[in-house]
């Protein structure tokens, strides 16, 4: 892959000049940035040299020939639905919402029709090129993904559901997601990421940006159940404005190995963010997650609960960072990490990092990990549950404690169903 190849690809995609410039700058950053070394704190547990960068190709993602199919049927109980992938796309939206300016669309289509709305967010992207080589790669070659815009003051009661799907022919993907919730808007959006496993390893390098305007109330739920052949390096970032609140729920059920950066910037006074993360690891799958809460304004509140269940030889590393600069007075931030280890070969590591420069702050962290409680196991078995069933029940109970923090109803049901599916494999 070189500059000429990227230019030709951008020509085929008929991309606007401002975007071409962003991509080329990012490509230069990609070329000059070395792979992260194992000595770098955030990469100590993931050897970047093993990531199959050779898979990177500039995919045809319906270049030029765009068409939108409207699904005849759509799931019940949702305000809008989008199915997004390289071969097909389907979309449906409650008419009242589309008339009032709600946008939920495939990224390629969004670039054609809503470039004006997206441009400020893409140009001032919070996904820093300087973060690492993979962030630069994503910024250079991203394609696919989706765009959601919730207009100012629009309060959407029913959830918005997105399914992104990649076929086995796509061994590389770099989808970009942009969620913009304008001032005083309210939305619950749930994305399920899926991929069809192929014969050899795939490499995904997605990027997510969530923008919560002043006083917006936003819930973002990501259910990642991509194939067990995927190497994933993802950069996901949320910006939360004054008095806005974000609940960000991340359920990791798939991928072979992941390096995930989840950054939340509390940018306006009184902003609030809650994050609930859960990863289920089995086989030889591994997960390395870095979450950062950056308290960038006075009186912001943060609460993170990250949990994991590891079976077989599943391995997880969780690094939770809380940053409170001098001016962020009145910060209140909590970080909890809990892991259930279901086999003697499973491993988990928890690294809390608190960087606090302000006075008058409340900051707490707690971490725990352990095996299944033998007395609880005996109790369930004494009621007739076979050991395997009793262990599964206790693991699901552990998980339920996290799921119970998600919005009740449709979202919780979906999370439960997906967790149970993975457990029952």
């Amino acid at each position, binding site marked *: 892959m070189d500059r000429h190849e990227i230019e030709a690809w951008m020509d085929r995609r008929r991309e606007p000049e401002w975007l071409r410039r962003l991509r080329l700058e990012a490509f230069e950053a990609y070329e000059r940035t070395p792979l992260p070394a194992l000595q770098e704190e955030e990469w100590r547990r993931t050897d970047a040299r093993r990531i199959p960068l050779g898979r990177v190709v500039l995919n045809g993602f319906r270049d030029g020939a765009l068409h939108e199919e409207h699904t005849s049927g759509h799931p019940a109980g949702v305000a809008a639905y989008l199915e997004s992938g390289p071969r097909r796309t389907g979309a449906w939206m409650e008419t009242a919402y589309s008339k009032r300016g709600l946008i939920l669309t495939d990224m390629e289509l969004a670039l054609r029709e809503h470039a004006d709305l997206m441009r400020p967010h893409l140009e001032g992207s919070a996904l820093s090129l300087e973060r690492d080589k993979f962030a630069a790669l994503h910024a250079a070659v991203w394609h696919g993904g989706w765009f959601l815009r919730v207009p100012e003051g629009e309060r959407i009661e029913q959830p918005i559901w997105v399914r992104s799907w990649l076929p086995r022919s796509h061994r590389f993907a770099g989808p970009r997601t942009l969620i913009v919730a304008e001032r005083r808007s309210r939305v619950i959006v749930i994305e399920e990421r899926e991929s069809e496993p192929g014969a050899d390893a795939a490499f995904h390098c997605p990027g997510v940006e969530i923008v919560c305007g002043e006083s917006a109330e936003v819930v973002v739920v990501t259910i990642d159940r991509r194939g067990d052949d995927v190497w994933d390096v993802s950069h996901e970032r949320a910006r939360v404005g004054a008095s806005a609140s974000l609940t960000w729920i991340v359920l990791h059920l798939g991928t072979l190995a992941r390096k995930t950066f989840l950054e939340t910037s509390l940018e306006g006074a009184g902003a609030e963010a809650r994050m609930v993360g859960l990863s289920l690891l089995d086989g030889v799958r591994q997960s390395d997650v870095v979450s950062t809460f950056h308290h960038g304004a006075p009186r912001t509140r943060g609460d993170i609960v990250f949990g994991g269940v590891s079976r077989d030889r599943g391995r997880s590393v969780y690094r939770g960072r809380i940053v409170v600069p001098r001016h962020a007075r009145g910060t209140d931030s909590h970080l909890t990490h809990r892991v259930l280890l279901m086999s003697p070969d499973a491993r988990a590591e928890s690294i809390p990092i608190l960087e606090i420069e302000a006075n008058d702050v409340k900051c707490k962290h707690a971490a725990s990990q352990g095996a299944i*409680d033998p007395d609880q196991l005996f109790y369930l078995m*004494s009621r*007739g*549950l*076979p*050991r395997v069933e009793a262990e599964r029940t206790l693991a699901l109970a552990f998980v339920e404690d996290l799921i119970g923090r998600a919005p009740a109803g449709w979202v919780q049901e979906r999370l439960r169903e997906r967790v149970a599916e993975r457990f029952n*494999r």
Partner: protein
Amino acid sequence: MAMDNTFEIRDLRVSVEGKEILKGVSLTIRKGEIHALMGPNGSGKSTLSMALMGHPLYSVTNGTALYKGLDVLGLPPDERARQGLFLAFQYPQTIPGLTVSSFLRMAVSARRGLLVRANGDARPDGPRRPGQDLLPVKEFLRELKEKMAALKLDSSFMSRHLNDGFSGGEKKRVEILQMALLNPEFAILDETDSGLDIDALKVVAEGVNRLTGPNMGVLLITHYQRLLDYIKPHVVHVLMDGRIVRTGGPELARELEAQGYEGFRPSADGGEATHATPA
């Protein structure tokens, strides 16, 4: 078969962390009988209940517990339960994240042979879909509500997490609720009266009395005579220092009440205290 009607414990010896607690306990319970096992703290009452149910920390070093021609001591705890053995725990476990109703639905389904194959493995071989091996929801809920009402448990308990934030009395009532649903053939009630006020005790005792009958044998473990005012035993055993030192009728419980356990303590030579064996 005649043997199906008895639960026969023979010369049971049990150690915990290398220390022998039960030193040869023999006891036969027939269906339809209620046996009370009384004894002071540390005599081995709870050890007996845990060993009979199969807690892995309690090692059986000698003896058998025969039921339906099987020595249940050789079975894993879940198999014992499915065969019809039940233990109402002195200290029931708290499991946040597991609702009372989903737990009970699994337990009832296991007891009725839906969740488990004949060889004891969880069914089926391949991936299972949630709920596919369970008692149908409607049928289960009808039964559950009926049994909860009988134990004066509010139906809101169904969606609460198991014993999470329950009072002592609520925990014990939920134990009896499980007994009612699982319909055991032999039930061990381990200090079901402890920590209960008198009203809760009456509710629990009524529940037990309703469940017992010609098809169930009961071993009622208690420290105090109080429970026996509400549940009438046919036979009373006194356990001291890992051995049964006296067996008698209900009058034995009153004798204990009057003179305490001290008079029943075996003498140093291993024989029984003189007045413990009536002429």
